[in-house]
């Protein structure tokens, strides 16, 4: 903190200072240089995800709490070191007998996916990639408060989201020196050959990971089914019936 940052002689209600439009929704960012926010160390965002909108995986330099204001959805995080415990099991069983390596012969496995509904409050540590999907018929509205003054943030008092996928054509206006500069995803900066070696894929697919031609933004519209592996809803949760027969 700079000296006198909390010498607040007059407070006022704050509105978002930047709106980042995307194909599947928008992100509204409050200017965290505003005196009240600077003093408190908070950075504040609101996410409005349209139906079938997917907020692509992003991680932050600070821990944050996210509150579901409206709508329903799915949320996934990738916590370092945690196993992929959501597995499409029936197919998995069949393939093992054939001695195939992990990753072959079954549909998918990934880390935990949770159902979201109004009132849910989600804690996300720094550096943990997180994504949201709106599987309802109304906008999914989330508000998130990141604590920039926390020990978990080892950088400066700026919110620095890192995009795993997608990009932000508008750039991060709230960061000095980054106005008018498009923000790319983390793969963009690596040489394609390195990505190809790291992933053991061809260079063309590696270039696809860099999303050069992609201007959809960080919330994209999913076309067709979004069939991630997830448990059925609790009976009565959000009035929705379980999607599969509980055994």
């Amino acid at each position, binding site marked *: 903190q700079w000296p006198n940052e909390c010498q607040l002689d007059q407070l006022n209600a704050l509105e978002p200072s930047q709106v980042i439009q995307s194909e599947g929704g928008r992100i509204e960012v409050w200017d965290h240089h505003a005196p009240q926010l600077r003093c408190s160390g908070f950075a504040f965002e609101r996410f409005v995800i349209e139906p079938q909108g997917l907020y692509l995986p992003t991680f932050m330099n600070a821990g944050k709490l996210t509150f579901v204001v409206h709508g329903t959805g799915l949320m996934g995080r990738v916590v370092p070191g945690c196993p992929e415990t959501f597995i499409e099991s029936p197919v998995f069983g069949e393939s093992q007998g054939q001695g195939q390596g992990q990753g072959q012969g079954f549909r998918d496995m990934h880390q935990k996916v949770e159902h979201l509904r109004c009132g849910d409050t989600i804690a996300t540590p720094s550096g943990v990639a997180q994504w949201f999907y709106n599987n309802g018929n109304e906008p999914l509205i989330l508000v998130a408060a990141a604590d920039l003054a926390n020990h978990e943030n080892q950088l400066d008092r700026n919110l620095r989201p890192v995009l795993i996928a997608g990009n932000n054509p508008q750039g991060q206006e709230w960061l000095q020196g980054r106005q008018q500069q498009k923000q790319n995803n983390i793969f963009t900066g690596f*040489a394609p*050959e390195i990505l190809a070696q790291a992933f053991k894929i061809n260079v063309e697919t590696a270039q696809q990971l860099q999303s050069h031609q992609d201007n959809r933004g960080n919330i994209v519209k999913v076309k067709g089914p979004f069939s991630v592996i997830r448990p059925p809803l609790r009976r009565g949760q959000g009035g929705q019936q379980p999607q599969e027969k509980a055994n």
Partner: protein
Amino acid sequence: GLEETLCTMRCTENLDDPSDADVYTPSLGYINTVNSYNLPILRLLHLSALRGSIRNNAMVLPQWNVNANSALYVTNGRAHIQMVNDNGDRVFDQEVSNGQLLIVPQGFSVMKRATSEQFQWIEFKTNENAQVNSLAGRTSVMTGLPLEVITNGFQISPQEAKRVKFSTMETTLTHSSGPMSYGRPRV
């Protein structure tokens, strides 16, 4: 009394002993870490360290510091290092060599590839339980994501998405060969 005081705390851990390695691949090398679990005094310092020793053409898969900044100091050999910042810009793309120091801020992704017979470094981290997350490999963020997120996020086919997710079975060290373009920071 004296038994449970600062005076008796162990404050030394040797990181040059491969038999203690946390990551080990005979043909690629090893990585050893010291943190507050195996050296409790670090809980007071909020610091930890990592010691790496890899062979020629071994690559440390692209990864980022989840909760720490780190100072990487080269103690032996040479390596090609690429680093990408939070804006997706390549901010470092050079060969580093013995005696050089490189700072890796939290959230910046780094790839290291040995370009000499042996590349050894010590990395000091500003968190007593420093964690890394990797972009590629069996325990990477990509493996943890559902296929739908990958196909929709990158506009690639399900088959390609499966290859991206599951081709690299290693977690930290992998084999890398052939020429690599570097020296052209993409900003």
